[in-house]
């Protein structure tokens, strides 16, 4: 190999290396800066700290302006794992009054990414939440000893009365499912959301709008200032306050009367559809759903066989019993099956073609008004039997669907549309239903029990109360609702429109007369209140156990202010529990207080206990 002493051409190698290096770098820059967008996002999340400004949640008033639900400051203890240094665990446990075992357990929970998907060593992790000012006080003083730990203020709900838990509902941390359904991206992990009742239904109004502060944060997480002098900041908008149609005094009386009984009371103002009270028994103290013990309490209530968490007023479906006869009378009158003067025989019941539906002692034959007053089964069985066999319909199927249309127009069989979550629709059978059940071979006798609110028919207490309101209004109702007004506006227009039934006002007058007579001399004598023209209808619904006791009524007769439904499971005759409770409730609402005698009566009913055993309900 010849030795070359002149290596000048090697300048090209050296120059080439330089060119290559710079070209590789430029290509790399191109990839980093132009081809991928990720780094920009990383940079923003790096540098911008979007600190959320939480609005305070709207408060809730009752119809008389009594504050029911309000906010109170609470404190969360959070920590940033990366910042913890030289932690004296024992001192921390002492300051927070927790056991070291709890500390270890909690730390394990927080750092478990399966249980806590938002875990990061660089962000706030909630160690304990919703401590009261007193609980937090000791810790606050010693906070400086625990670098990496922080106290964050938030607000929690407080309840002025220990009542109306089902209506008011509660708030809790957003669940994984709610996070998925979070289409407007409002919620972040750890935020609170309405879980039940008004809190849930009016979540959007109550929650307000979050504000945001855009801050610049350096590598150590220290805030360096506002971005663009706060031009991009947004102030939080306070949630709207809500006034309910609820009368808290009436509600509390209802809950008192229903103590140790299972059932429900619903009262509606007929003219507006506002719900005056909605009692579901057994109930619970709404305050149990607040703070750190929420989870424990919730679980406890969930496991109770009497299901106190269930709002029976809208979620319980019951046979309406004799209260349903009013709706039957209206249908028969409107369809021309009977006239107000029409009389049917009743010899201790409806006896026809081998079928017998029992009845109690009263004169026979009997007209519509006394039939309602005395709650004659026979009369309405005849009516339905006649309707099902009527020539003008041709077939019982047609007649059945006609009947169904009347029921639906009165608000049965479908959800009424109350402004609370979880409402049930009840059950109103139609022709197809029976065709399926009896393979097409059925007639008026087969289905006769629906005429007296038994059999397949199921209503919610709210639907029964709404029937009362419809009769009070002589032919229409306004969708019942708990919210009376929302700050700065009215309730939704659906809660202001009249919904007319298929029956005409003059037919309603007949039914009203029957209900008035029931109070004056019929089954509802116990509902008579001095100085008030009360109308009422008892109900005694047969079921597998002891009869359910029901009452539906309204008062005063000619200027109705309140319509009410009372339903006491296994309470026996309507007159035993339904009537006296209904009467006390109406007295309380119309007079603003109970008379001394009534107070004694209320005390007596409140103290009565119905034993249900321990079976699941």
């Amino acid at each position, binding site marked *: *190999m010849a*030795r*070359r*002493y002149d*290596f*000048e051409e*090697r*300048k090209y*190698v*050296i*120059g080439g*290396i*330089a*060119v290559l*290096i*710079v070209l*590789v*770098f*430029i290509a*790399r*820059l*191109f990839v*980093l*800066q*132009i081809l*991928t967008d*990720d*780094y*920009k996002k*990383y*940079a*923003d999340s*790096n*540098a*911008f700290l979007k600190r959320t400004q939480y609005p305070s949640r709207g408060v809730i008033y009752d119809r008389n302006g009594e504050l029911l639900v309000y906010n109170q400051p609470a404190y969360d203890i959070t920590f940033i794992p990366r910042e913890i240094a030289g932690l004296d665990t024992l001192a921390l446990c002492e300051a927070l009054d927790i056991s070291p075992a709890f500390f270890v357990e909690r730390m394990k929970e927080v750092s478990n990414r399966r249980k806590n998907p938002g875990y990061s*060593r660089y962000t706030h992790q909630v160690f304990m939440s919703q401590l009261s000012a007193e609980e937090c006080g000791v810790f606050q003083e010693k906070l400086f000893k625990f670098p990496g730990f922080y106290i964050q203020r938030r607000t929690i709900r407080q309840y002025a009365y220990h009542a109306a838990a089902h209506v008011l509902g509660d708030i809790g941390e957003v669940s994984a499912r709610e996070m998925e359904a979070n289409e407007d991206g409002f919620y972040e992990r750890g935020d609170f959301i309405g879980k039940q009742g008004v809190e849930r239904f009016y979540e959007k109004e109550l929650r307000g709008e979050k504000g945001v502060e855009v801050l*610049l*944060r*350096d*590598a*150590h997480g220290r805030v*360096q*200032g506002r971005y663009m002098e706060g031009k991009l900041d947004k102030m939080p908008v306070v949630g709207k306050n809500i006034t309910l149609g609820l009368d808290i005094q009436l509600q509390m009386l209802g809950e008192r009367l229903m103590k140790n009984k299972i059932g429900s009371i619903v009262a509606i103002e007929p003219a507006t559809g506002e719900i005056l009270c909605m009692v579901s028994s057994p109930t619970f103290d709404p305050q149990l759903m607040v703070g750190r013990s929420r989870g424990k309490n919730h679980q406890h209530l969930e496991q109770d066989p009497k299901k106190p968490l269930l709002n029976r007023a809208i979620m319980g479906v019951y046979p309406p019993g004799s209260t349903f006869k009013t709706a039957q009378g209206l249908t028969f009158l409107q369809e021309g099956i009977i006239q107000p003067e029409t009389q049917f025989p009743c010899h201790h019941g409806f006896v026809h073609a081998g079928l017998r539906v029992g009845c109690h002692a009263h004169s026979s034959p009997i007209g519509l008004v006394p039939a309602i007053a005395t709650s004659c089964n026979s009369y309405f069985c005849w009516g339905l039997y006649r309707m099902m066999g009527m020539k003008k319909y041709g077939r019982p199927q047609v007649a059945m669907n006609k009947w169904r249309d009347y029921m639906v127009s009165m608000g049965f069989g479908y959800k009424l549309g109350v402004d609370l979550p979880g409402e049930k629709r009840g059950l109103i059978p139609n022709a197809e239903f029976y065709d399926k059940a009896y393979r097409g071979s059925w007639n008026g006798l087969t289905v006769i029990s629906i005429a007296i609110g038994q059999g397949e028919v199921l209503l919610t207490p709210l639907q029964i109360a709404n029937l009362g309101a419809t009769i009070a209004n002589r032919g229409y109702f306004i969708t019942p609702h708990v919210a009376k007004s929302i700050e700065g506006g009215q309730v939704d227009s659906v809660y202001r429109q009249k919904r007319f039934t298929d029956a005409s006002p003059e037919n309603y007058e007949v039914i009203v007369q029957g209900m008035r007579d029931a109070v004056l001399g019929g089954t509802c004598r116990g509902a008579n209140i001095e100085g008030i023209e009360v109308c009422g209808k008892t109900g005694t619904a047969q079921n597998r156990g002891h009869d359910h006791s029901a009452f539906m009524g309204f008062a005063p007769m000619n200027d109705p202010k309140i319509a009410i439904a009372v339903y006491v499971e296994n309470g026996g005759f309507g007159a035993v529990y339904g009537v006296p409770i209904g009467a006390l409730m109406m007295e309380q609402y119309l007079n603003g207080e109970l008379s001394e005698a009534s107070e004694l009566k209320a005390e007596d009913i409140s103290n009565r206990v119905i034993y249900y055993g321990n079976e699941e309900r």
Partner: protein
Amino acid sequence: MATRNVSVWKSVDWTIIVLYLILVVCGWFSVCGASYTYGEVDFFSFDSRAGKQLVWIGCSFGLGFILLMLEEKFYDAFAYVIYIGMILLLLVTIFIAPDTKGSRSWLVLGPVSLQPAEFAKFATALALAKFMNSYSFSIHKWKDALLLVLLVLLPMCLIIMQKETGSALVYIAFFLVLYREGMPGAILFMGVCAILYFILSVRYGEVCVGGMGVNAGELLVLSLIVVFACSMVWVYCKRSKVGFRFMGWCALVAGIGAAVSYWWHPFHLSYVLWGICAFLVIAFLYFSVARRSRNFALIALFIAGSAGFLYSSDYVFNKVLQPHQQVRIKVLLGMEEDLAGAGYNVNQSKIAIGSGGVFGKGFLNGTQTKLKYVPEQDTDFIFCTVGEEQGFVGASAVLLLYLAFILRLVVLSERQYDTFGRVYGYSVASIFLFHLFINVGMVLGLTPVIGIPLPFFSYGGSSLWGFTILLFIFLRIDASRGEQIQRSKRMPMS
């Protein structure tokens, strides 16, 4: 004297000076951007880093001026003196420098600290140039070559003793100069091979192929050795095709081995490759004797050496290197992601640059650098600021400026009449290239994190002065070449 001064200004290379000035000014703006914190806008106050840098820049201009005024002969005459003085200074520094972050490389003189390592570069370059310029010097003499390596290794070792490994690595750049001056290219090639073997064996060292837990990195490197060796036969042994024939046979044997191991009877596939390597060594040694060719023997040595390097580097990586050093290397090779630890700097640096986009966020508008996400952002990671605030356009422009600067230095070096000027010029170019390569590469996540500054950009008086001295001595040497031409032109007329 007056005429000589005028001629310096005429003959000095203004292209380089203009490029230098542009880079220094861009550098100052970058320091402003990187050291800027909210609410502080006074870049001219001596309290701020930008203000201080302005003072250093002023001083370097003065230095540059003085260096141009000195006689060219001065550098030639005092090269060894300067070198020895600098070596002594480095030695002294080890003992008297205070411990700053584990390194003992800063001399504190009242309010200013100086890093002698930055100045040792030009001294070494001068000594190297002078030595290679000497009459009897030949790079092919063993004694001279050894002395050359010693000249480079001495300051390198001293700087390593100061715990400034990054600065010491810069001296590798001198090998590029030696290459230009006739060092066999094979040495450069072997350097590249060593790096390649190391990266491959570490990167794929944990990947298993086949059923016997055969290490993929090992297989890959062994195959590469065979390919290199056979290709070298072609290059160094009179275009002999025997290498390629061997390569074919080896591939066949390895293929059969792999097939047997995969389908029939699993065995350690490395055995096959060891066998192939051993066979090649014996075969080449035979050729070397039979054909009387030393090169065949050398290639056999290359194979043995490569295999030895492979297994010793494996040992070094796993047994000698500290765990944190292993992690650093693994992070660089993309085998581990440790964004909070070893990979933090580079990841943040990539985020800062990546967020710049095409045109950048504008001067002083970078968020990542302002908010101190990138550590060392005004010294070693200064290029982040350029990338974030000036975007792709600005960063590429800076890189192209550097390229022009380095290529111009190469051109200037080549036009020197004597070895002294050429060697010095190439030293300057190589040092700048090495700094650019390592520094920008590290910021872009391509090279390991080695803390060396980006010339003219990184904040700091020592490095700026060091580079200015390095450059302006060369400019003075180059200008004297021009003076000679001027003189020779003028002579006949006068």
